[in-house]
């Protein structure tokens, strides 16, 4: 698929028309109204890559090296106005409420939802000097499932989900999700406080689709997880702190958090990180420019600046997450030398174990299953 912006096709016209019609009926009773055809066109207009104001930046807290911000501000004579979110849902709620940002960092699943909702500008990769290192180096992202042709996004970071554990207490593990049922770790096991990750782990263990929305599958997943429940100490996304402060012998964990832990652990050798042979969910955060961004030109310059090899190196070392940029691999391997499984490779991406968006009914089934697992 061509990454350039092209004139409206019949299908996109129809889609926009339906959205507009829905918007009319929903406008009176909804919080947010759908975009109309004119907005659709505005979204598709290529962005001029030039300074058009200060950058209004919206991301997880502390997710970019401050030195990179300083460099960008100095070089282009603009200010970076920062605000943070603490969940994708929180980010979407802010966007839907009409707050205007120039650059946001949705995950794959959310990129798809936002693009489908007409909330993202298209990004012409040809206008980014450094985009070739991404799309040339990692062809997965040239046409990912969440954004055909990466028309609205540029990938930012990647991560996998696996198991972090105390090597000093448990020794070696077997490299399977079944390790969470380890007898020795009983009562000191945490799983992430995250619906998709926990249901996905159960599904992978059973050999099912990682984002299954089928009620029968979900019943099997719930049953499996119910056998894990009495062994659990808790649901917590504070994975590496739980390992560090001794509450956990073992925890489901994101690779990037484990890499970040290396900087804090006195002796990294007592910890381990493995990914399961049944499959490791992968995910990526993306750069995206909201449809109503006031300074999209500056945002384009910012993406390009972030993709420069020097910025990529600084950011990888600062946040501990690998980035799909050719030439940055050595920086990351050096950083996570004790936990080689933190690397996200081309074959990890090819396995494509991303969490997908479910249908409305499917989301409900998944929600019910999650409540079941969590509340017992």
């Amino acid at each position, binding site marked *: 698929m061509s990454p350039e912006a092209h004139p409206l096709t019949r299908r996109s016209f129809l889609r926009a028309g339906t959205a507009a019609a829905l918007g009319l009926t*929903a406008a009176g*009773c*909804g*919080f*947010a109204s759908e975009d109309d055809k004119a907005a659709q066109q505005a979204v598709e207009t290529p962005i001029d890559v030039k300074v058009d104001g200060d950058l209004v930046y919206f991301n997880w807290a502390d997710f970019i090296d401050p030195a990179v911000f300083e460099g960008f501000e100095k070089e282009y004579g603009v200010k970076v106005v920062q605000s943070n979110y603490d*969940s994708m*849902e*929180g980010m*979407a*709620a802010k966007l*839907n409420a009409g707050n205007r940002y120039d650059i946001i960092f949705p995950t794959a699943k959310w990129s798809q*939802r*936002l693009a*489908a*909702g007409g*909330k993202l500008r298209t990004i012409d990769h040809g206008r980014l000097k450094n985009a070739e290192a991404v799309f040339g180096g990692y062809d997965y992202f040239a046409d990912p499932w969440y954004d055909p042709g990466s028309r609205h996004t540029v990938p930012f970071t990647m991560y996998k989900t696996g198991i972090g554990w105390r090597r000093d207490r448990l020794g070696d593990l077997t490299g399977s999700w079944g390790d969470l049922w380890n007898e020795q770790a009983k009562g000191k096991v945490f799983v992430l*406080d*995250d*619906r998709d990750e926990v249901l996905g782990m159960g599904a992978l263990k059973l050999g099912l689709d990682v984002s299954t929305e089928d009620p029968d599958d979900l019943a099997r997943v719930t049953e499996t997880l119910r056998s894990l*429940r009495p062994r*659990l*100490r*808790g*649901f917590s996304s504070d994975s590496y702190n739980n390992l560090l*402060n*001794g*509450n956990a012998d073992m925890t489901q964990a994101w690779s990037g958090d484990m890499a970040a832990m290396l900087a804090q652990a006195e002796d990294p050798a007592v910890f381990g990180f493995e990914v399961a042979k049944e499959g490791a969910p992968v995910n990526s955060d993306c750069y995206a420019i909201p449809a109503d961004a006031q300074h999209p030109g500056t945002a384009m310059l910012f993406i390009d600046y972030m993709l420069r090899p020097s910025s990529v190196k600084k950011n990888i070392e600062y946040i501990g997450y690998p980035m799909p940029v050719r030439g940055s691999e050595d920086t990351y391997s050096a950083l996570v030398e004790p936990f080689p499984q933190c690397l996200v490779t081309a074959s990890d991406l090819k396995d494509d174990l991303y969490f997908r*968006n479910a249908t*409305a009914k499917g*989301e*409900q089934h998944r*929600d*019910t299953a*999650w*409540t*079941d697992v*969590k*509340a*017992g």
Partner: protein
Amino acid sequence: MAPRTRSATARPPRGGRAGGEARGGPARAEARLWTRLMLPGTLWMTGFLLASLLLVATLAFGTTDPLGNPRFGFNPDNFAALAEPAYRTVLLRSLGYALITCLICLAVAYPVAYAIALHGGRFKNLLIAAIVVPFFANYLVRMYGWSVVLSDDGPLLGALRDLGLADDGTKILQTGPGVIAGLVYGFVVFMIIPLYAAMERMDTALIEAGRDLYGGPLRTFFFVTVPATRQGAAAGCVLVFLPAMGDFVSAQLMGGPDQIMIGNLIQDKFFQGQNWPLGSALTMLLMAVLLLGMLGYLRRTRKDEAEAAR
């Protein structure tokens, strides 16, 4: 005699409106003044409380669009979903935790309030400030701090192990008592303040009378002080019970899979699941349960007032 006269002017004259009219102009003007002064508060409550309540009530019948935005509608599914047994278990657990929290808060707050109100002397205000000021810091931050202090390899359990008072398996976090301790810590101040106020107002002559009638300190406390301050205790119970019942921070940071409270599930619906309508329906359920409890409280205070007026 002095306190009597003061309370007589503060309260509306006996016999209700007829009495007020009999006393003529100034009383009515005063009543009108109070009505007017109530206006900003009433408007505020109507504007923000009732409107948001209405929003939640309507949204409970709504649906969610693909972007996760809530949509209004007429969809009874959300209430049907509440039949899931998990919700009942969690709701009952929350009720239990909140009740135990209330009782512990009472047990902690009575001696504290008593000591400050009756023996605090010139340090009274300082002591009250010492209790209140720590609560200016954000609740979440304080609880996060506790979760570090109480962790398995944390300072407290480490010290206890060194003293031989705890073994390797002892844990505080992710237990029911841990969560209740968090709730007590978070809300005990709401019990101390109304009790302190009630004891400040209490006529200490009553205690002296109790002693004169050969009541021991404990008997006097239970048969004189407690009944005389029961309105403060009731207000404190409401102030502790309501937030404890809806709390999710304590269960999240101090609790494990078997300590999840209704607040955690509601929070999940609004954030992770992005199912605002179901979250709203759960909120309505929680409010219905709390309202039942409140009705009991209101009837009790009305009875107390009626007795006081007689």
